[in-house]
């Protein structure tokens, strides 16, 4: 009996030591990865400096006209630093990017209250401090007086290459907008005569969904490129309907 108790105690101790060693090894591996990431960050900073100073020849001609629409995901902490955002937008303007969408994760509705994204609250300040920038906004069709102007407004703004256009998007323009669009389609469905037909038939198409999203004011264009600022690559809930084929960097 003593022998079996002792062997059990020995087994438990060796298991604990084994776990401790494995944990230490895991921490060591992550420490090495942190060092490597730090070194890579320094290399990236050096490369950025070389690009800005014009020493790297291959970045001199950017063919920026291929980039029709750029979107940027800004973390909550960064969204409060309005001066840095204005500086970023000024750089983009200098490089030749004309249409920019700024997205921050804040801004959602619960019940009857709507909290605007951080960037949406600062949009007037940002637009004032950017020379000649125009606001790009998908106007909701709930305002019938501007219904007829909607498509004309969007086309004119996007074709304008003199001024930079800015769109401000927040979390509420993603999933919540799809919910609102779903309710628009539900109203049409309830009034139509398709309700009693075959349950397996398709009722809506993707273009009808796109129209419904425009109706609720969340039907902006698909960005060609989505820049993510943060420690990891994550689109943070940027409207799913608009990033089907967007390059996310």
């Amino acid at each position, binding site marked *: 009996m003593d022998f079996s108790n002792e062997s059990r105690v020995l087994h438990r101790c060796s298991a604990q030591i084994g776990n401790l060693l494995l944990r230490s090894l895991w921490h060591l591996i992550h420490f090495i*990865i942190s060092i490597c990431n730090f070194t890579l960050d320094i290399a990236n900073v050096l490369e950025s400096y070389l690009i800005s100073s014009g020493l790297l020849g291959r970045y001199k001609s950017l063919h920026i006209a291929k980039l029709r629409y750029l979107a940027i995901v800004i973390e909550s902490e960064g969204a409060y630093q309005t001066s840095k955002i204005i500086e970023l937008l000024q750089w983009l303007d200098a490089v030749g990017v004309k249409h920019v969408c700024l997205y921050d994760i804040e801004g959602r509705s619960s019940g009857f209250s709507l909290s605007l994204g951080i960037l949406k609250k600062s949009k007037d300040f940002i637009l004032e401090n950017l020379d000649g920038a125009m606001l790009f906004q998908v106007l909701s069709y709930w305002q019938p007086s501007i219904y007829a102007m909607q498509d004309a407004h969007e086309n004119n703004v996007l074709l304008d290459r003199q001024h930079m256009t800015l769109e401000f998007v927040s979390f509420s323009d993603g*999933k919540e907008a799809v919910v609102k669009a779903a309710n628009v389609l539900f109203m049409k469905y309830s009034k139509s005569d398709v309700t009693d037909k075959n349950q397996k038939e398709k009722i809506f198409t993707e273009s009808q969904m796109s129209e419904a999203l425009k109706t609720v004011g969340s039907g902006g264009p698909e960005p060609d490129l989505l820049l993510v600022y943060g420690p990891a690559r994550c*689109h943070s809930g940027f409207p799913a309907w608009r990033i089907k084929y967007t390059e996310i960097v």
Partner: protein
Amino acid sequence: MDGNRRYAKRKLLEEGAGHDVGAMALLNMIIYCHELGVKYITAYAFAIDNFRRKPSEVQKIMDLLKECMTVLAKIAKHHPIKVNFAGNLELLNTELRDEARNLMGATAKYSKFVVTICVCYCCTDDIVHSVEESCREKHYYHCYIGDSHDDDKDDERPIIKLVDIEKNMYMAVIPDPDILIRTSDEHRLSNFLQWQTCHSLLASLSTDWPEIGVWHLVKVVLDFQQNYDYFVRKRSLA
């Protein structure tokens, strides 16, 4: 799972052989994930847009899908894995569709390790399908059940909520992923899970899919662990 055709071209293989190697890579990846303790693995096998490819290539992929189902059915006899097929299965031929449904039915009782294969899937189609189902549900509730419930007073039309959309999606069978891996140096989502990956690490590997190995998976998991606190914070804000 990008890079099957590029791999075949680079290795001078015959047309379609890249997909064979890709299918093996998927089965290997399922084993690696199981060994690492990952509970849910989802693979994007065939997009709705892929029907536009050459008929011979589409047929090749369908044949491979059938073989994978056979292999997974054999594995499921000895190991408790649950297999899901997410997507518009009505676009498949009857034989494949029935086999997929049989496999899902046979493995429905397991939950420790879940393999989801996305077939005839794209995220925008998933959203539209989910909206359709939600509309049908709410209409049925309003027409046939609504009067007997207190919250439907004064003939108020029920409204669709986010929970309705999410529960009717093809991907509602599993939780949102922590990591999304794309191979062949692609940085786009290509209409795959952009709804479900709001708070997921998007990992892009330069290797082609047939060449993916366990160390690529380990590297991505280590990257995720490095940023774990950041993702936990993001999910808690949501």
